[in-house]
């Protein structure tokens, strides 16, 4: 009998919404490995991988020997250099935790739009005075010649990449020409083996800067 009960699925759903798919996946894999080692990570992958392919990819990386993601934000900071505003689409807690303290004077704003239930006040409270939120209908207020737009990518292959569906709501022809830099930060670093449920395909050419983990 599996040591991972069905509640693990709803637990991952909660975590994925508020921490981000990739951050939640690393958290789960780390905790499960601490409890039951690689066999339990394999079990987790089998149990939830199809439903959450990012978790599948991260578990795969773990089983291949990788123990933590590369979250160095330097390339993203370089891509945002000179920007006074940064609009972030999508949540990845581990990566935002690394990036936001280094932004200096650049004001970061998170788009409050998700397919998952999210307590946005709690998300912002984790980044005291470094992050605020904006509704989809108001994102133009953050546009401008010194504004940058950032989203997280979940693997890139050729001209295709996979993004939070909110990105498709944001990235129209109008918005593309209203932000100086459009940065895609590949937090997964590999292409998903399974159907990328929860995510949407977007052309890599949407981005003025592609940053790979």
């Amino acid at each position: 009998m599996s040591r991972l009960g069905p509640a693990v699925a709803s637990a991952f759903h909660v975590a994925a919404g508020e921490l981000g798919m990739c951050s939640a996946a690393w958290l789960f894999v780390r905790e499960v490995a601490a409890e039951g080692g690689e066999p339990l990570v394999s079990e987790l992958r089998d149990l939830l991988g199809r439903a959450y392919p990012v978790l599948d990819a991260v578990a795969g990386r773990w089983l291949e020997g990788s123990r933590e993601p590369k979250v160095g934000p330097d390339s993203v900071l370089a891509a945002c250099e000179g920007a006074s505003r940064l609009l972030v689409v999508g949540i990845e807690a581990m990566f935002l935790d690394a990036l936001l303290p280094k932004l200096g004077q650049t004001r970061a704003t998170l788009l409050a739009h998700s397919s998952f239930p999210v307590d946005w006040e709690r998300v912002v409270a984790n980044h005291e005075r470094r992050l605020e939120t904006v509704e989809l209908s108001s994102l133009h207020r953050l546009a401008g010649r010194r504004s940058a737009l950032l989203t997280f990518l979940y693997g890139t292959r050729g001209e295709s990449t996979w993004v939070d569906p909110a990105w498709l709501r944001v990235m129209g022809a109008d918005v593309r020409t209203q932000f100086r830099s459009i940065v895609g930060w590949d937090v997964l670093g590999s292409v998903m083996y399974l159907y990328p449920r929860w995510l949407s395909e977007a052309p890599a050419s949407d981005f003025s800067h592609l940053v790979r983990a």
Partner: protein
Amino acid sequence: MAQPPPPRRHLPSSAIASFIDRERIDKLLARWVPEAADRAFVLRCVLDEGPAHHRGANFVLLSLLGQLLDAAKASPESQGPSVPVPMRLPPHIDVGEDGFYPLSFPRKVLERLAPAGSAAQEAMIDCLTDGPPQHSLANAAMLCLISALLERSGGGAP
């Protein structure tokens, strides 16, 4: 019954993309937009946005004007008021100076066609700066080049 004529054969869009030399336009615009990140933004709007034929046409016209500029050893005007190019933000949004692209063109060049402050000149500015940035920014870039050429040619004031 007569058969409809076969559709006109178009060149593949890759053929357009292949002749666009971003480096050339980047170097050309450096005289008006010194900051690299700003220039990258303008280049993206002029050469990477909108229908492929616009991108290609923008490249051709700007390149040729650049050649003319080099041949004439002309340089950008250093003084006089300039016209900023606004972003096409929703009308109720005002983000101040940030709502304009980092490229503007000299107003003086339009005085050859209409007096400063006249309704005609304002209408010209409206025509040149309206529309998506592959139009408005390309217009602004070309006006910068044309203005420098006219200055160099010694045409003087109208």
